[in-house]
């Protein structure tokens, strides 16, 4: 029987090696697999290259991983945010390497790796300093730059629901990098709020089919989905509890 469910989160990430390239899903805090990241911090793998859209928010999740000093390099599109003080400090101190990639090229490099395409031409970034040394070519009178696919040893992703076959559904805009990253890593590990029986997920709505997923880790409901469904008025946009006093 196929069973990709690994209930012990530390066991699920135990084989991440020093020097690994690790994709981490999420756009800001939405879709960031915070429980898997916390497990990776406990695990202690170092000299990591992290591929993620941003470079951490506040002091939790990806920011905490950066703060642990185990990340050598970040490949991302938008490190600078109002709450990216951990990355900002490391970058200014010269303690972390940054490869800045326009967001669409970043995700297409990831998608290409998962789809068996080693490189592709893109119009994004033509004539900019990010591609000053890139190979260019004209198609139909328009100039394009050649960029290479980007794969990883491990992808860490946050889903909503999954089954033991590794079929994953996401919730709203937390889907973001999940499907392309799941396809582009040697080992894909997905944390989900709930594991459901095979057959319970609508086959017409499975953004990440199980073939892309190696391990599924149930972590329980999040604060704003206390019984599996959204409940309003409980958290702010960062997922922090809000003052409920005086609420009717």
């Amino acid at each position, binding site marked *: 029987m196929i069973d990709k469910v690994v209930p012990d989160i530390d066991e699920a990430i135990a084989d991440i090696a020093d020097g690994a390239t690790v994709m981490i899903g999420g756009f800001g805090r939405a879709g960031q697999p915070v429980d898997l990241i916390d497990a990776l911090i406990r695990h202690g793998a170092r000299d990591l290259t992290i591929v993620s859209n941003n470079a951490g928010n506040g002091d939790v999740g990806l920011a905490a991983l950066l703060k642990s000093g185990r990340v050598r390099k970040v490949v991302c599109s938008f490190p600078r945010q109002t709450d990216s003080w951990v990355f900002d400090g490391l970058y200014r101190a010269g303690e972390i390497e940054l490869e800045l990639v*326009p*967001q669409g090229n970043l995700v297409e490099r990831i998608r290409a790796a998962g789809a068996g395409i080693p490189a592709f031409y893109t119009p994004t970034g033509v*004539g900019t300093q990010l591609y000053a040394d890139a190979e260019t070519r004209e198609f139909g009178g328009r100039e394009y730059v050649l960029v290479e696919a980007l794969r990883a040893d491990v992808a860490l992703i946050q889903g909503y629901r999954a089954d033991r076959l590794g079929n994953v559904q996401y919730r709203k805009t937390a889907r973001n990098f999940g499907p392309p990253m799941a396809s582009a890593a040697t080992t894909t590990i997905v944390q989900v709020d709930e594991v459901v029986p095979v057959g319970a997920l609508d086959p017409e709505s499975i953004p990440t089919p199980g073939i892309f997923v190696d391990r599924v880790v149930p972590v329980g409901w999040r604060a704003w989905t206390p019984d599996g469904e959204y409940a309003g008025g409980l958290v702010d946009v960062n997922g922090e509890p809000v003052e409920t006093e005086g609420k009717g």
Partner: protein
Amino acid sequence: MATRISRGELAARLAQDIPDGAYVNLGIGAPTLVADHIPEGREINLHTENGMLRMGPAPDAQHVDPDLINAGKQPVTELPGTSYFNQAESFGIMRGGHLDVCVLGAFEVSQHGDLANWSTGEPGSIPAVGGAMDLAIGAKRVYVMMDLLTRDGRPKLVAECAYPLTGRRCVARVYTDHGVFDVTPDGFALVDAFGETTVAELEELLGLPLVDARTPVE
């Protein structure tokens, strides 16, 4: 004397140019104001780069959902007919030329339509580009919404950009607090001037010749 209009008035002016049924991406910051000024009777579809079409307005405090945010990482809502999709598809929507209009902020726009809006190149600053380069080259019409002058009075419409480019020859039209300018093969063309602003005044402010393309008032 030149006359300026407010951000809200400018957003309302820009919104007049977005046709019914359009697929639109509004960049973070001032461009998001355009959504509040879509004329009555027009239905538009807002796209947000993090993977959603038919994005609705901000929720009240009782309906904030951390899984439902926009490109600026602010909470938003669904409209009936909303769809969610992954980042590869979302940027395919941009790069593939499917968006009718995008509205971006800018540091500078050149008379050739070059856009600089992602980096001032200051030493010690942390570079961040996000989806700016994809939007700049992807939408059918790229509109810029910005002040005409910097705080210290330098023009942001320029002969050549000094800041690092976001995209080459990509801007169609620039909406500023002094007037609206099209990018044409002959340079900037003034299509709308606010208040009593004259072409000569704007040419002096910018240090650039302007084509007067204003529709004559009847």
